[in-house]
C-alpha cells in the first residue's frame, strides 16, 4: 500500500458553521485535534457559512463526529477512507512505479 497504508480510515469531512458560535467551537476543536484543514487553508479564515473541509485521522474521527453531533453542526463525509481514495485514483502504472 502506498504511504504504508498510513491514511487507512482517515476521513475528509465537510462542515459549514451556521453561526458565529458554531464557527468558534469548530476553531477550538480543530486546534485541539490538530486537524489537517484542506479548505480554507487557515483556521483564522473560518467564519459563519464558510465551507470547511477537514481531514481527520481515524483515531480522532470518533471524537470529532461526537462533538459535531452534540453541537448540532451538520456535516458530510466527502471521503470515507482516504487510503482507498488515494489508491483508486492512481493508475496501475503509477502504483507499480511507486512499488
Amino acid at each position: 500500500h502506498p504511504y504504508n497504508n498510513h491514511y487507512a480510515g482517515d476521513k475528509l469531512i465537510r462542515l459549514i458553521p451556521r453561526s458565529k458560535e458554531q464557527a468558534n467551537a469548530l476553531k477550538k476543536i480543530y486546534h485541539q485535534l490538530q486537524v489537517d484543514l484542506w479548505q480554507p487553508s487557515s483556521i483564522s479564515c473560518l467564519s459563519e457559512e464558510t465551507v470547511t473541509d477537514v481531514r481527520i485521522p481515524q483515531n480522532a474521527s470518533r471524537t470529532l463526529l461526537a462533538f459535531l453531533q452534540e453541537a448540532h453542526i451538520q456535516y458530510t463525509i466527502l471521503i470515507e477512507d482516504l487510503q482507498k481514495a488515494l489508491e483508486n485514483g492512481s493508475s496501475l502504472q503509477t502504483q507499480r512505479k511507486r512499488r
Partner: protein
Amino acid sequence: SPSEYNYEVYHSLEEIQSWMHHLNKTQSGLIRMFSIGRSYEGRPLFVLKLGRKSRAYKRAVWIDCGIHAREWIGPAFCQWFVREALLTYKTDPAMRKMLNHLYFYIMPVFNVDGYHFSWTHDRFWRKTRSRNSRFRCRGVDANRNWKVKWCDEGASVHPCDDTYCGPFPESEPEVKAVANFLRKQGKRITAYLSFHAYAQMLLYPYSYKYATIPNFSCVEYAAYKAVKALRSVHGVQYRYGPASQTLYISSGNSMDWAYKNGIPYAFAFELRDTGHFGFLLPEMLIKPTCTETMLAVKNITVHLLKKCP
C-alpha cells in the same frame, strides 16, 4: 518526444526533471531549460523558457505550478501546457501567435522539496521543508512568504501552522529565487499565472485586502472570457473574481506580489475539483482538467495580447 511521455498520470519530481532535461535536448527550437537557484534541500529550481527564439524584444508570461506540495494537479497542468504548446505550435494559429509573440517561463514544480516529500512521506504536505531552529516543525507556506503585507491577515506566525509566513519575507530560497528572477525581468513579464488546487476558481488581486485593482476592467473581462471558454469544454463551472472576496483574505502571496511589482495581469487558478476528491483528483481526471484549463490560459493570453494595454 512529447507524445511518448504519459501526461495523464502524476509524476515524481525525478521524472519531471528528466522530462525537462529531455525536452531541453530534443526541442531546442522552442525550449530552453535553465535553473534559477537551489531549494532549501539543495535541489535545482528548473524553469523552461518556451517560445520561438527571437532577437527582437518579446514580452513574457510567467507560469508556476506546485507552490503547495500536495496540489499535484498543478504540476500536471504545467507539463500539459508544455506538451500542448509543442504539439500544436505548427497547427494551431493561436498557439503559434502566442509562442511567436511571447516567451513563456514555466516552472512545473515550484516547491520541489515539498513535492518530493509529498511523494515519499506525507501525501498531504503543503509547505516547504525548511527547518526552524527553535521549533520542531518544518516548512513555510510558500504562498505567504512574499513581501506584500507579509504575515498579516490569513497568515500565521506559528511555525507549526500550515500557513506559517516564515521568519521574514522571502526567507524561503525558492521564493527568493523566483522573486529575484521576476525582478530582473522588469517590465518584460506581462502576466503572472499560478496554479493551485482545489476550488475551481480563477482569481486576481487583491488577496490581502478588499479593494479594486486599477486595471480591473481588462482583468475582469479576461477572467470572464477565460471561465466561459473553460466551461465550454466539459461544462465545468469556475467562479472568478478578486481573491479576497471570492476565496478568502490572505497576505504575502505570490499573485499580489507580482501585481505590486509591476506585472499588470496576475492570476491564480484553483483547479478541480470542489471537494469530491479534493487534493486526490484521480489521474483519469487529469486530461479533462488540463484540456479545459488550457483553453482558459490561451484565452487569457490572446486577450491580453489583443485587448489590454
